[in-house]
């Protein structure tokens, strides 16, 4: 399903004043494409993603997913949070099955699906462990599997690898790319990391400082499927350089 963001803006109003987090933003994400969002801290990236997820109400504008207006969270849009947000009282397997259980999928079927995802993320041996026993990278893999097991049309990822070390991060990036190539979900992926943004995306959206607007959309035409070799091509380096320039300009403007 495609995601259409039309003139979406957000102003937070509280007793201590108002914060204009997001200036009107419009963006069309075609079905099955992988879009990354880059922008300075506090420019409203998370806010935008939360509006698409239906966790936050836009002050103006509408979001349409597959043509239907968003008016609350739903199983069609999965989300992966920066802080993993696994349910600590559920085992790895139960976490992965959470959405299926909410949907009323019978236990046998749930188990078959969680088995598949456990294998995919290489955590079969940890199926019955609790989140407290996992490393950060393992937790994030479970969070991604939990979102995917629910088979959402759209996957929203908010700096999912922010807390991981460089090596784990690179492996997780390839993992997500593999998943995307296999299932062709529509993906919106927020990151701080220019290299990550280029490596994953069909297009990189660069946002301005707060209140965030879209400054530029940079298409990424690197061949797919991509693995770490892609990072060493001149095209990759050129894109990185261009994005670095845009962001430096934005920050010093």
């Amino acid at each position, binding site marked *: 399903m495609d995601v259409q963001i039309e003139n979406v803006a957000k102003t937070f109003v509280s007793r201590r004043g108002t914060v204009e987090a997001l200036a009107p933003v419009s963006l069309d994400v075609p079905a099955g494409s992988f879009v990354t969002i880059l922008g300075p801290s506090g420019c409203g990236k998370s806010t935008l993603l939360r509006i698409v*997820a*239906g*966790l936050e109400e836009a002050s103006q504008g509408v979001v349409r997913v597959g043509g239907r207006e968003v008016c*609350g*969270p*739903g*199983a069609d*849009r*999965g*989300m992966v*949070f920066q*802080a993993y*947000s696994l*349910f*600590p*009282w*559920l085992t790895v397997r139960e976490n992965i099955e*959470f*959405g299926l*259980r*909410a*949907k009323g999928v019978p236990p046998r079927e749930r188990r078959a699906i969680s088995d598949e995802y456990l294998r995919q993320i290489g955590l079969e041996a940890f199926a019955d462990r*609790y*989140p*407290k026993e996992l490393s950060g990278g393992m937790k994030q893999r479970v969070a991604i599997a*939990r*979102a995917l097991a*629910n088979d959402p049309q759209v996957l*929203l990822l908010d700096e999912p690898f922010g807390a991981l070390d460089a090596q784990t991060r690179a492996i997780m990036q390839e993992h997500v790319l593999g998943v995307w190539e296999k299932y062709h979900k529509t993906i919106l992926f927020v990151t701080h990391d220019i290299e990550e943004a280029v490596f994953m995306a069909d297009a990189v959206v660069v946002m301005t400082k707060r209140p965030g607007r879209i400054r530029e959309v940079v298409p990424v035409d690197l061949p797919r499927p991509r693995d770490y070799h892609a990072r060493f091509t001149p095209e990759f380096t050129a894109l990185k350089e261009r994005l670095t320039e845009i962001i430096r300009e934005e920050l010093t403007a």
Partner: protein
Amino acid sequence: MRAERPLDARATPAGSRRPGRGFKPLGEIPASLYTTYAAAGFLGLVAVWSLLTSTRAVDPLFLPSPAEILRRGWELFRDMGFGADVAATVLRVFLGFAAASAVALPLGILMGVYRPIEALVEPLVSFARYMPASAFIPLLILWVGVGEAEKVAVIFLGSVFSLVLMVAVHIRQAQRELVEAAYTLGASDAFVVRHVILPNAWPAIYDTLRLVLGWAWTYIIVAELVAADSGIGHVILQSQRMLNTGNIIFGILVIGVIGLVSDLVMKAAGRALFAWRG
């Protein structure tokens, strides 16, 4: 911090056996050492007490020796049917506490989950909480007499209001991110309450129940001191009338032991129940 330990332990083999081990802020000690310290605390108390009585520093009329108290306790059980008193008190605490929980859990959960219910109930309960249960005893005696109902009612009144408020607070403590994650996984409101908000709050609610059970013991003794024909509090009061300090102290110790044992049991059960906790 941790990473440096093995290194300097290797550099100086004796390093790991530094004096004062375990006295690092928030440091850990082995379970066996913990037990040793705990036993030392109790033995120390008994030693000081024995010393005071054996040197006649205090009049044994007011503080008998530990051995004397144990002897008195044995007599209480053997000749005076103290076992029945203990059972009566335990049963009252259990009934009052169960009644308070049966009301406070659903009400507190509803209050925590739904703001309108909180607005309706919270001010009333907060007000009621400041009325001491013991002050209700005379009124309760007038209402329901001096029988079992009065004892159970004192415990009920003493625990129910605080319990409601604390349960509601624990429910409110649900992490917003976990609730949001559940919604993005397609959970309904009812599913979120049942599978996120409640499991998230159970450990804290359980600890609160443990705490309030301790208070229930205080209330029952007060109730039994005022008016009762059985129970530990009743025996304590009778003993005071006969200047029998040994029995009084033994009664108090029995309350302490029962409280300690029930708390240990609940603690262990809690650890088993909530193994997922970090």
